[in-house]
């Protein structure tokens, strides 16, 4: 499984071959130096640890600087792991992974943290239909309805969908088409929307299901 860390730059539209609009998300992806190669022998699983993003030098603590020095790379703000099937000898600490990992037309999975929407009712959070507007109803328009039976079982089942905090969770969007790769600008164009708000950190992987 190959992937790269990116930053969501925003969304826009571009023109397709037929002159149609294509909604795209612009992702600033990489370059990501490899900070550590994890192997099954040593760490118990195979993975690549990538680094991405800037942070002021003074904000790094000594242990983390040591970690970056070990790989002989500049200290970066984010460290993220990508699981790999087996260790690739060409990929060693210090090597950079860039957007040319992806080609136009390929499918990718994008993982990020969705926008935090706060406390939301059941209609918005779980797409309930709410109650009827008329026929003598009051205060029922966005109500959740029944949350269970009566004397049996005398309790509400776990997992019953109710109002509560929405968003701000890890979400993966599968099979997004790559519509543009710009190695010079470290830019990736992906068809459609991606979790999170602008400047959110994203993990872009080659699609699992093809």
């Amino acid at each position, binding site marked *: 499984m190959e992937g790269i860390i990116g930053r969501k*730059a925003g969304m*826009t*539209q*571009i023109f397709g071959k037929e002159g149609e*609009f294509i909604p795209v998300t*612009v992702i600033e992806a990489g370059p990501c130096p490899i900070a550590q190669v994890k192997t099954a022998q040593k760490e118990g699983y195979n993975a690549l640890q990538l680094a991405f993003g800037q942070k002021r030098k003074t904000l790094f603590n000594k242990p983390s600087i040591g970690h970056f020095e070990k790989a002989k790379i500049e200290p970066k703000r984010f460290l993220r792991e990508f699981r790999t099937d087996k260790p690739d000898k060409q990929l060693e600490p210090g090597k950079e992974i860039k957007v040319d990992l992806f080609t136009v037309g390929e499918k990718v999975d994008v993982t990020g943290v969705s926008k935090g929407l706060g406390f939301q009712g059941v209609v918005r959070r779980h797409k309930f239909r709410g109650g009827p507007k008329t026929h003598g109803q009051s205060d029922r328009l966005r109500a959740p309805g029944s949350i269970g039976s009566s004397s049996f079982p005398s309790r509400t089942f776990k997992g019953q969908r109710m109002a509560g905090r929405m968003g701000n969770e890890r979400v993966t969007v599968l099979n997004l088409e790559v519509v543009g790769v710009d190695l010079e*600008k470290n830019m990736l164009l992906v068809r459609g929307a991606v979790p999170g708000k602008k400047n959110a950190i994203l993990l872009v992987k080659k699609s699992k299901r093809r």
Partner: protein
Amino acid sequence: MDLVSAVEGKYLKEKKVDFKPGDTIKVHVRIKEGDKERIQIFEGAVIQKRGKGVSQTFTVRKLSSGVGVERVFPMHSPFLANIEVIKKGKVKRAKLFYLRKMRGKAAKIKEMEKEEGKKEGEVKE
């Protein structure tokens, strides 16, 4: 936002045609038929302009054998060959949706008098 505008910049047209809602324009549309390409003209009144940047669109309305036909064109579409302004209209609003209910003489847009046109041009500069 910098990367986003870089992406949009590639698709923006350099040449801008100055027209407003109320103007009568001819839109030259490239149409692909197999390998051949030809140009079709859609002539009518501009009833709205909306959006900005690459996403900007405008709507042109015309009467085609008694039936109102509206077409929305992306301003920066690569399939727009040319836009000709035929008449400058004198209208009092930015969206002319009220024209949809009008028939015959009521649906006519008054033409901008020349002097007024000049004055407006001066203000813009």
